């Protein structure tokens, strides 16, 4: 019978580092999925995930077992992604002149007939990635967690370590920031 998660964690804490490997195998797909929401280059994504695991190993003694290990780990993953965003703020203030032809077509379709521009189009996904990349780290994190992952303000406060009022303020500012970026994007193209 395979050892349980709690047994693996207890073994790691006793000094058996090898017991950490099954945890890495089990949860890496979720950590990679989270990292891919915040970074684009595969090398950066791998660096983030590796850092998450190294941090998890170092801080394992702070895991009290009150919440599932996965929640504890994902909180660490989101915080590491946020640190990554703060460390890579360059290239945020660029124009939208580089948007591709399909993206431009999608925008034109939206301008002409908003109802006919499909949300599941690849161009729309590329556009939102472009917009998210231009947001400040705080705004991006809030938009990602609140709007895209549909998490509650309380959940976000727990994940980020921010207070509930701070999350609300940052959410308000993030929406405004996103609207400004969209205004600039459409201004560059259609005005």
């Amino acid at each position, binding site marked *: 019978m395979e050892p349980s998660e709690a047994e693996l964690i207890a073994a790691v804490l006793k000094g058996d580092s090898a017991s950490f490997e099954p945890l890495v195998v089990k949860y890496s*797909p979720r950590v990679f*999925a989270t990292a891919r929401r915040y970074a684009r280059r595969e090398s950066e994504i791998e660096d983030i995930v590796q850092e998450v695991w190294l941090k998890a190993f170092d801080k394992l003694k702070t895991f009290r077992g009150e919440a599932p290990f996965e929640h504890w780990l994902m909180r660490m993953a989101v915080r590491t992604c946020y640190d990554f965003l703060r460390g890579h703020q360059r290239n945020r203030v660029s124009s939208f002149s580089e948007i591709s032809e399909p993206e431009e077509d999608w925008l034109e379709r939206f301008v002409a007939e*908003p109802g006919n521009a499909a949300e599941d189009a690849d161009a729309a996904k590329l556009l939102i990635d472009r917009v998210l990349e231009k947001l400040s780290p705080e705004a991006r994190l809030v938009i990602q967690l609140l709007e895209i992952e549909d998490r509650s303000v309380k959940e976000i406060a727990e994940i980020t370590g921010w207070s509930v009022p701070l999350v609300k303020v940052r959410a308000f500012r993030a929406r405004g920031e996103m609207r400004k970026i969209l205004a600039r994007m459409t201004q560059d193209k259609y005005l």
Partner: protein
Amino acid sequence: MSLPELQKKLVAAARLKAPDERVPYAFEKRVMAQLAARAGADDWVFWSRGLWRAAASCVAVALLLGAVSLFQPKAPDSGKDLSQDFENTLLASADLPDNSTP
């Protein structure tokens, strides 16, 4: 153009994007190797930190003793130097008057 509507559409597009859970081949081995390498490095760090701390303490003690000896008030000069004191001490027994002889 309605910006809130565009925002809503693009957020909906982002929601539809399934997160990619692909893990590179043998990624867990890489993490474990990194942990093992760090553990080895940690031993060296432990020793080097310990030795540096010991060296720093020795320097501190030496400086302290130097300062104490420098600022200590000098004993009044009796006019004799160290060699004279040493000689007196060494020959003290010879200088004592022999009381055993009648």
